[in-house]
């Protein structure tokens, strides 16, 4: 009964979404305030009904209703309750419903927090978002209905949630990711509204910025959580694989980074309007493209959902309509590029343009690399694989190229700066060079020149930021007065750039200084890895809620202290019966120590993986800083005191 209720709620939601796509938009063309005002109540209604659907589906999972197909396919009565809940988005159909719910949430948020927006702009924005919702709701109802039933004969027990997903990571990573992904639809909607309305002044950019920064922040968190989850869950210490599904989430992030910087120029200086509009369309198009790639089966991935070519066709048509339609609208309505530009090459605009060039190059590179096997295959040119060796080789230099400019950009003045002003950056350069060159010397016996480069770049970022803060607060009566005069926007930028430096260090230092060993250990044996001593005390049987495990006990002495790590080899009791290794990690700010059990060998020994990974957690701390920085900017007062 309840699943049917959910189904009906979804059907109602489509109707409301259709109304919301048409009525406010129509109202904006004919000038009817009544019609335009419908945007908010319709958004609210759509949110309510999609929420009802979510609740119904959650109910099915939490009550082990195996008559619902996806519950039977992806859940199990032995599953801990929290995973029964998160199993909702463990499969394709449920995750699509989550997508839709988050879209409805963003739409409602825009409707609620846009009192300063002119009514016709708001009406158009809400209509565009509703159009997207219509597409996804239809996709869900027609090809991927989460409420599909297995009547009259349904199994007594579900198959189980993939053990890999039985982890806190699954509870939080997809929602965060989707909030980010879907959030770019707001910037998209604003861009389309601007193109439709012909009002291309810079207020559009000002309205878009907080929404875009917010979405970008969540996407950063979503990607970071996925990376961290893969690291501790998969058992081999990797944190990024350039898998097509990962790339599908990374491309909107890269384009989104270009977008948030481009929006800054458009808002402050009124420049690059056409370009920023295009970027807004591009970022969301990449989100949609990602949805297509992940769910259509055109690319092979460990993350891919179970696929069906008919679903692929639907998404492709939807993609064609949305992206094709918006790019056509852009081609006809975007302002032609002005002949006079209005800034000197020694200005902040130039640096932001460089940011855009590099991030666009990165986005396109990842796109081409991800699609290359598909393109070659469809041209009959054979089967190719493009993986980490390629992406790492091309991506890292691009990012390295970016950093020197990141250090100057915030300090540079708008429109026209004088090179002499930049003399104050000589101190940071010198300090960074000195400390960067020394660091690898002091840290380990083997000198890694690339580590020197990374440390120089990261320190350059940090020192240039500090210099900029000092320079911008220098005129105030005292330090506190100076600091409090800077806006949340400014501090958000500082924090985000700082986060980038931290991640940069984390990536480089952990890649170069990690030590990994796969060894065969007998109970009672010890192994020495760098300055750590691993003592294997044997294994014992433990019981989990839905698994049985061999748990190994490792006593590790490091420096003066010692601690115990308990890696497990789990065999799940469900029909899947999968065997999984659950690594044990001692996580510290400056290093991770990681132990994983492999296969039991003859004579009672075990294959064991031992890792020493310095600075690896900086990768994710940095991402958290970046996201926090983005979120901070949303609270800037100037976004709230808007004049239409």
């Amino acid at each position, binding site marked *: 009964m309840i699943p049917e209720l959910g189904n009906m709620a979804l059907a109602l939601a489509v109707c409301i979404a259709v109304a919301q796509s048409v009525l406010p938009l129509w109202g904006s063309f004919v000038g009817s305030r009544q019609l335009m005002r419908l945007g908010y109540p319709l958004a609210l209604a759509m949110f309510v009904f999609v929420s009802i659907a979510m609740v119904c589906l959650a109910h099915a999972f939490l009550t082990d209703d195996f008559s619902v197909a996806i519950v039977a396919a992806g859940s199990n009565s032995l599953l801990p309750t929290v995973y029964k809940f998160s199993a909702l988005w463990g499969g394709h159909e449920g995750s699509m419903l989550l997508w839709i719910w988050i879209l409805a949430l963003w739409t409602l948020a825009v409707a609620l927090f846009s009192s300063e927006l002119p009514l016709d702009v708001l009406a158009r924005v809400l209509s565009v978002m509703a159009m997207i919702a219509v597409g996804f709701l239809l996709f869900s109802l027609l090809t991927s209905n989460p409420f599909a039933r297995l009547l009259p004969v349904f199994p007594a027990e579900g198959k189980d949630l993939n053990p890999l997903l039985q982890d806190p990571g699954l509870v939080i990573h997809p929602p965060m990711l989707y909030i980010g992904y879907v959030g770019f639809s707001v910037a998209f909607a604003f861009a389309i509204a601007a193109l439709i309305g012909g009002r291309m002044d810079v207020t559009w950019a000002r309205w878009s910025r907080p929404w875009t920064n917010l979405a970008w922040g969540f996407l950063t968190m979503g990607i970071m959580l996925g990376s961290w989850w893969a690291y501790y869950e998969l058992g081999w210490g990797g944190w990024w694989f350039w898998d097509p599904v990962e790339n599908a989430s990374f491309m909107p992030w890269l384009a989104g980074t270009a977008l948030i910087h481009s929006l800054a120029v458009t808002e402050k200086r009124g420049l690059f309007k056409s370009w920023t509009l295009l970027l807004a369309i591009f970022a969301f198009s990449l989100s949609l493209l990602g949805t297509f790639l992940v769910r259509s089966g055109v690319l092979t991935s460990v993350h891919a959902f179970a696929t069906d070519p008919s679903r692929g066709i639907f998404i492709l048509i939807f993609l064609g309509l949305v992206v094709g339609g918006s790019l056509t609208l852009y081609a006809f309505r975007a302002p032609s590029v002005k002949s006079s530009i*209005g800034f000197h*090459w020694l200005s902040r605009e130039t640096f932001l*343009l460089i940011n855009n*060039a590099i991030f666009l*190059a990165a986005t396109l590179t990842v796109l*081409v690399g991800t699609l290359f096997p598909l393109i070659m295959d469809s041209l009959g040119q054979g089967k190719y*694989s493009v993986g980490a060796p390629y992406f790492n080789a091309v991506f890292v230099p691009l990012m390295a190229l970016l950093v020197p400019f990141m250090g100057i950009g915030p300090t540079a003045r708008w429109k026209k700066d004088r090179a002499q002003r930049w003399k104050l950056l000589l101190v940071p350069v010198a300090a960074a060079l000195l400390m960067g060159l020394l660091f690898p010397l002091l840290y380990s016996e083997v000198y890694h020149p690339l580590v020197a480069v990374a440390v120089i770049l990261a320190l350059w970022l940090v020192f240039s930021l500090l210099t900029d803060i000092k320079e911008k607060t220098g005129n105030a009566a005292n330090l506190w007065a100076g600091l409090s005069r800077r806006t949340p926007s400014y501090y958000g930028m500082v924090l985000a750039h700082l986060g980038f430096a931290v991640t940069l260090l984390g990536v480089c230092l952990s890649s170069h200084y990690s030590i990994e060993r796969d060894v065969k250990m007998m109970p009672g044996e010890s192994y020495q890895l760098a300055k750590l001593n691993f003592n294997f005390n044997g294994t014992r049987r433990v019981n989990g809620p839905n698994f049985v495990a061999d748990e190994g006990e490792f006593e590790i002495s490091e420096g003066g202290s010692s601690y115990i790590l308990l890696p497990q080899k789990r065999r799940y009791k469900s029909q899947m019966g999968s065997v999984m290794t659950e690594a044990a990690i001692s996580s510290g700010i400056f290093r991770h120590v990681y132990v994983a059990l492999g296969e039991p060998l003859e004579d009672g020994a075990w294959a064991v*993986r031992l890792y020493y990974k310095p600075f690896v957690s900086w990768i994710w701390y940095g991402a958290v800083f970046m996201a926090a920085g983005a979120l901070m900017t949303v609270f800037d007062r100037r976004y709230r005191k808007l004049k239409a």
Partner: protein
Amino acid sequence: MILAVIKRVALILLCLTASAQVLAAIDHHTFEDENLRQRYLSLVKELRCPKCQNQNIADSNSPISNDLREQVYLQLKAGNSDQQIISYMVERYGQFIVYRPPLKGKTLILWMAPVMFLLIGLACIVFLVRRPTESNSVAVSNTGTSQRIKELLNEEEQS
């Protein structure tokens, strides 16, 4: 069509061995030479597992990955170069099995792409910035109300 897909998936599943999919391929090859170990680690990350859903043979515990890792180990010990080992694999499994596209032939464009994108971007910047503009000439001329008017107009534009 759906039936065909289901059938295909079922077939693939049937081909999995009796021991279930384990994640973390931990083997215990011994290397006397550290250099050899580093080469082993980087080679097994470059080779793709032919039957897995996009994993390298280092990360996969499928039987074929185990065999291929063993083969890499044996060939390294026998003194073969990295290129020889890669060629050995490509001969038998095709270009598919290498994650690093070759730096020649049809995949050369893949390696040139990032450089091309970057150059195009930088060319656009240079083109945009180098155009002689009103504002640039404002910087040049120092006096006159016309210049002041222009400045005011510029500020208006940007508020």
